[in-house]
């Protein structure tokens, strides 16, 4: 099987380039893209990529495969079409080396939405209770692993990574806005109420089509918009 891998070492290379590799894979067998990258690294130890849990939980091996963002560890080679598999770093973020990108901008947006529960009421003796119905509202939101596949597939995030919170950050923002135990709903909505933070989303759904956890940031963004609208009238 042939692979074309994005190579760039800013200390040595003037420009990034694509390098071809060949990997023998037994006919009829399958493996995850991450395993293939690992085998290629044995051939060429200079290939750089991030990895950790190898089962789609840590979110560190997000890459762009054949033009689509995905987690290498849960992408089977059999699911990829074409004679050659092209692996590039996540688009839109500065490349540190090869497939490793600088996630600082992405994390800065995450930080902005205050990704923690804030409750200014009197603290209960044991814990904040939540009804099963209220807990259910967090499903499809709390599962985000911050792999950045969605935000780096979003043109609005490419153009305004410093001002647009991006699909991942907004999904997380809604996760806390809708949490019945959080008392900062108003100020959270206030924080997003400008031309860029939320309203750069044009609903093109690139985020939904790449999310490795099957989450839907477009829908979460729609809910936030509706909450803002209700607040405004």
């Amino acid at each position, binding site marked *: 099987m042939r692979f074309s891998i994005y190579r760039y070492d800013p200390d040595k290379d003037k420009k990034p380039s694509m390098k071809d590799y060949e990997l023998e894979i037994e006919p009829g067998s399958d493996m995850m893209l991450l395993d293939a990258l690992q085998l290629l690294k044995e051939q060429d130890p200079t290939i750089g990529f991030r990895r950790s849990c190898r089962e789609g939980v840590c979110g560190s091996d997000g890459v*762009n495969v*054949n*033009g*689509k963002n995905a987690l290498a560890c849960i992408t089977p080679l059999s699911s990829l079409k074409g004679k050659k598999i*092209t692996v*590039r770093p996540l*688009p839109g973020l500065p490349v540190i080396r090869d497939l490793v990108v600088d996630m600082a901008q992405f994390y800065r947006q995450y930080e902005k939405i205050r990704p923690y529960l804030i409750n200014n009421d009197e603290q209960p003796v044991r814990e904040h209770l939540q009804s099963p119905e209220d807990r259910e509202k967090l499903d499809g939101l709390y599962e985000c692993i911050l792999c950045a596949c969605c935000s780096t*597939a979003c*043109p609005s995030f490419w153009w305004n990574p410093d001002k647009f919170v991006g699909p991942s950050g907004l999904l997380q923002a809604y996760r806390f806005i809708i949490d019945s135990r959080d008392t900062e709903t108003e100020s959270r909505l206030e924080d997003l109420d400008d031309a860029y933070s939320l309203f750069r989303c*044009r*609903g*093109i*759904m*690139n985020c*939904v*089509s790449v999310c490795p956890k099957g989450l*839907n940031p*477009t*829908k979460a963004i*729609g809910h936030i*918009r*509706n909450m803002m609208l209700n607040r405004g009238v």
Partner: protein
Amino acid sequence: MAAFKWPITAISSILHRVTGVLLFLAVPFCLWTLERSLNSEAGFLQVKSMLSGDCAKFITWFILSSLTYHIIAGCKHLLMDVGIGESLESGVLASKLVIILGILAAVGLGVWIW
């Protein structure tokens, strides 16, 4: 960007924007023809004969096709605002519908103009 694989939902959205820009650029032409045709009978006849040429017909068709696509895609946006077509499946379906309806409208307009 050339290596990026664009889902159909993104294509229908960028076409929405492209048609929006084209319509904006077409505004002076449309206003000018409107102004000429309302100015006098001679002006009306001048615009009429001008618009009957093949090139002018093509421009008219192009502007009207952009307009119908833009309206259809805009309706999709409004539906999304009320929560319809927000899942991946329905979003893909809606985008396909928008493109198909846009093409059908363009064909219909072509038949009407020529």
